[in-house]
């Protein structure tokens, strides 16, 4: 008995929440949206044509946008004194319009979002129920003009954000730099910094040098080092060829400087950044490689000891770390 009354009471309270007082209300529209969504699911499971399913989904999205906009409007949900309804409805319309665009859907969706929200506000003011143009009163016209240019400004801000991302894609090394002094951008703390392209350039140079010098007879090394500048240019050209062409590659200049180090040499490989940077005097990345003579051939042949002077071979080892140095070398 008790359970029955409890169930009835619960049902009554559920009914008051779920059933609209009048049919002309936002809840009806949300139900319409749910209904058309279920119908689209049903259509898909029954193998209906794409057009039918498409119409059903579109209807469900439109009903969802209208219903949620209506709900926020009637309940007067506000943020900082501005009504949220057109923005949320505009966002839903944007997700519906651009959500199926694949990977890059966020950019057009965000850029058009303020403009579509403006349209959501403007259309009821400019069109009557018979879809005819009507002239709103002067204060409303003033509000609409202000709102239009405000939404254009918001859209420009989004566009500026995406333009900055384009820059950073073209010049990834810019991300690694500090933007503390900027008047425009802010880096949200806790982001991981991507690897600078200069590091890959130096790794590439290391591979080239190892291929040319490692396990070669020592006189060959001496001859190779006589023409450091020529080798520099050759390596630079090789790096440019091997990298995928990005605008940033032209801004890294490769330099190489040999120092004598005991019996062998230390090669300082430098990637010098010639693009925009926060550092007053620029910066460069440095990787040092040791080219050392080794007494024995590493792989093959058994040198006859004592008979002749043993041929010296070169071994190249490079440091793993690539320190960033301020200034110019």
């Amino acid at each position, binding site marked *: 008995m008790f359970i029955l009354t409890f169930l009835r009471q619960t049902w009554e309270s559920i009914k008051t929440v779920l059933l609209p007082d009048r049919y002309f209300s936002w809840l009806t529209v949300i139900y319409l949206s749910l209904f058309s969504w279920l119908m689209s699911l049903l259509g898909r499971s029954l193998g209906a044509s794409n057009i039918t399913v498409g119409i059903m989904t579109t209807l469900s999205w439109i009903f969802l946008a209208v219903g949620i906009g209506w709900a926020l409007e009637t309940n007067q949900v506000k943020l900082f004194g501005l009504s949220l309804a057109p923005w949320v409805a505009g966002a839903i319309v944007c997700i519906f319009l651009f959500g199926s665009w694949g990977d890059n859907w966020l950019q057009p969706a965000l850029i058009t979002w303020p403009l579509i929200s403006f349209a959501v506000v403007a259309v009821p003011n400019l069109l009557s129920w018979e879809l005819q143009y009507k002239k709103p009163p002067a204060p409303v*016209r003033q509000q609409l003009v202000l709102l239009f240019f405000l939404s254009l400004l918001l859209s420009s801000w989004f566009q500026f954000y995406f333009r900055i*991302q384009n820059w950073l894609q073209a010049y990834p090394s810019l991300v690694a730099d500090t933007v503390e002094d900027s008047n425009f*951008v802010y880096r949200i703390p806790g982001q991981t910094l991507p690897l600078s392209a200069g590091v890959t350039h130096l790794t590439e140079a290391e591979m080239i040098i190892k291929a040319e010098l490692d396990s070669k007879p020592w006189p060959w090394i001496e001859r190779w080092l006589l023409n450091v500048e020529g080798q520099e240019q050759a390596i630079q050209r090789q790096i440019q060829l091997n990298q995928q062409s990005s605008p940033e590659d032209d801004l890294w200049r490769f330099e190489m400087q040999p120092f004598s180090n005991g019996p062998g040499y230390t090669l300082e490989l430098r990637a010098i950044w010639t693009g925009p940077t926060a550092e007053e005097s620029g910066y460069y990345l440095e990787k040092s490689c040791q080219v050392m003579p080794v007494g024995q051939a590493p792989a093959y042949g058994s040198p006859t000891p004592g008979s002749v002077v043993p041929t010296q071979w070169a071994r190249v080892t490079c440091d793993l770390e690539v320190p960033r140095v301020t200034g110019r070398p």
Partner: protein
Amino acid sequence: MPITDFLADLGLMPLRAIAFQSMLLLVAIALEAIVLRQHLRLGYQTSVQYAATINLITTSLGWIAFLSLEALLPWALRQQIISYVLFNRFDPTNPWIDALPVVIVVAAIIAFFTTYWFKLQGLSLLVRLLDRETVPRVTVSVEESPRYNSTRRPVAWSSSARKQQPETSSRGSSYTLAVLQANALSFTVIVILLLLRLNA
């Protein structure tokens, strides 16, 4: 961690630009509203609305102009813009560094006069859109209405027409003067604020 992934995807956000621009817009709107109110004898609310409208027009059109022009500039000049936007300094090794002061001054002068023109046009369009005290463009002259010459006293009519003419022209010129002064004032204050920020 999806949150950190999301943050890493966001990259650099122009939050400072948005904050500074909102602040400068508020300053410009307040100053221009004062000037417009004094020159055009408008109410407080109307002058603020007019100033807000013309400033939002020029700001949003300025963004569109910047975003489309920036894509067309040569790479070296774009690098200077990137350097200024990200690091608040110009790259001294860039080939454009010598021409840069000239470019900036020319761009600033062009920006001043284009914003002035757009503000003036925007204001007159806005006034016409709101049906408020439209500036009478064509004054009725004696030749255009010969029919009334006989019925009304021609001397009085022409004298009233003549009286009306300088008034309307002064009305139009008061618009141009008011917008010019407002624009000059807001530009001056904004440049001073930007210089203060540059030195700080």
